[in-house]
């Protein structure tokens, strides 16, 4: 039973009917097959219509969809010989961020990112993808390791934000994120980041100051959650929808603002409707991005990465 979002109700009804008809089954024969085909065409048209013009708030929900593929799914399909590496060598192992070495389409890489978890147990184990300082210090360690051995870094971003807790603050959440950004801008290897779900604030940019930043078609990337923004600026979380509009957090808006470099298309109805397809298209996009950088020297890669961020937002000024 798929999980339907609020705005998918009409689609859910149609698909429910299709299931019912299928259960009625074989005896009544041809008529039912025709009816199923007709309803399927209708459902697909409806999907195409609603996903063709998702509002920012609808995209927020798609980006947070419980069945949306997460980091572990991408690693499983795209990375051979994946060898997870653990720990920040200072305090602990934060499973909100997973990373390690492996082979991506033949070449060794460092891959890392936030993992939200897929059921109650794994969500708790991964703290819903919200990392503490240890997670960011581990990410930093992995980037430095990649730099030492010339491994390109692939960073998949999917987090509501860094974890806001007493322990996280006590151990220097701000410093850990700052240091992670600093290292992102220091390494001399190709660095590609992809926002695959939620790109939540400082917790996201910590591992996304990359040469190329890709974004899935219905992912979001924002300085604050729409709910948080609404409760501050509108003084009510009920305005989350308005905040989502105002924040310009969609891939389409961010490409126009030149905050991201390209959009990776999702299958019809969102990544969760065809997981192998979205993994394939992200894989292709990551490979293209890496190939573009394969001949560029490390120092140049670093300089270009910095220049990109320095120039960001300046366009349009005389």
């Amino acid at each position: 039973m798929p999980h339907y979002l609020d705005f998918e109700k009409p689609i859910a009804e149609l698909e429910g009917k299709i299931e019912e008809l299928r259960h009625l089954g074989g005896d009544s024969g041809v008529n039912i097959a025709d009816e199923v085909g007709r309803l399927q065409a209708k459902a697909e048209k409806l999907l195409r219509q609603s996903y063709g013009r998702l509002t920012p708030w609808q995209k927020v929900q798609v980006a947070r969809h419980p069945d949306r593929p997460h980091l572990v799914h991408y690693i499983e399909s795209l990375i051979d010989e994946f060898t997870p590496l653990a720990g920040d060598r200072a305090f602990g192992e934060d499973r909100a961020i997973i990373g390690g070495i492996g082979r991506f389409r033949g070449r060794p890489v460092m891959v890392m990112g936030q993992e939200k978890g897929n059921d109650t147990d794994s969500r708790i184990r991964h703290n819903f993808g919200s990392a503490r300082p240890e997670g960011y210090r581990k990410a930093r360690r992995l980037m430095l390791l990649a730099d030492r051995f010339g491994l390109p870094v692939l960073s998949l971003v999917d987090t509501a934000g860094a974890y806001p807790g007493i322990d996280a603050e006590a151990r220097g959440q701000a410093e850990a994120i700052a240091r992670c950004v600093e290292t992102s801008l220091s390494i001399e290897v190709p660095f590609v980041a992809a926002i695959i779900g939620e790109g939540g604030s400082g917790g996201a940019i910590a591992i996304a100051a990359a040469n190329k930043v890709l974004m899935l078609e219905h992912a979001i990337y924002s300085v604050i959650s729409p709910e948080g923004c609404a409760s501050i600026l509108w003084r009510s979380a009920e305005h989350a929808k308005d905040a989502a509009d105002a924040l310009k957090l969609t891939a389409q808006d961010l490409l126009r603002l030149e905050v991201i470099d390209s959009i990776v298309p999702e299958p019809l109805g969102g990544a969760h409707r065809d997981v192998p397809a979205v993994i394939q298209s992200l894989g292709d996009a990551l490979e293209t991005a890496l190939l573009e950088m394969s001949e560029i020297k490390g120092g140049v890669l670093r300089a270009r990465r910095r220049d990109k961020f320095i120039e960001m937002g300046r366009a349009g000024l005389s």
Partner: protein
Amino acid sequence: MNWLTNFVRPKIRALVRKADVPDNLWDKCPSCGKMIFHRDLEANLRVCQHCGHHLRLDAKRRLSMLFDDGEYQRIELPKVTLDPLRFRDRKRYADRLKEAQARTEEPDATLVAHGLIGGRPAVVAVFDFAFLGGSMGMAVGEALIAASRLAVLQQAPLIVVPASGGARMQEGTLSLMQMPRTVIAAQEVKEAGLPYIVLLTDPTTGGVSASFAMLGDIAIAEPGSIIGFAGARVIEETIREKLPEGFQRAEYLLDHGMIDMVVPRHQLRETLIRILGLLRNPRPSAEVVALPQAGIEIPADAAAAAAGEGAQGDR
């Protein structure tokens, strides 16, 4: 680099700004609640004479407090696209900006100045909390990049004084991008071998703390300042617990190893002068050491001695 040639003419500031309030007014200390004669509070650098609480200091006052004789030169900062998202909540961001500009008579939340501190050149970037809570958008990012490049050009240390609630959310993800941009600004100063000092003041939180503000070669904080990543309210709502006494205060960060020192406002300048003096110790020019080259005959006894050393090392 047009901003470099566009230095504003030197503006000599009086040590104490012309008070816009009559001298006979009283202020109430937000910490101990006692009444303080306004003139006394200003003369005491806005530190409560009863309890030592540090009230917020405006940006220009901060600059005159730090530079020798209160003299400094401001630089004109690069223009930025105002309101890039045409953001509107209950109010237009464009209107909020105009109001803040009218109130503070400044284009945005960061001022950059250069001058002498303890007789040595220094560049200072200071945040004005009164300008939309010192929030960081494109203009603040540009200010810090300009400050960093001026410091490198002058081979002077950079001192940054944040007072900011974090990113300016009305600039959306572009405000988030000021985190990497300001980190690069800090990196450029550090990579030029120049001191990068951060003076954390109340408050330093969110995206500001999680970028340039936590990367100082030396981190100094004013007593009682709130410094941290997540806001207290967000943390309380997440963990449903009361926060411990003194949480996210400067002293708490000192105890947790996140900053070097907590320095009262009256001792800041002398502390800075001492640190800058110590960090500016010029390196001795490297002594040229001749390395043995191929083809050069090594005397037998020297070769034997070297071999003996090697053997010792192996043991």
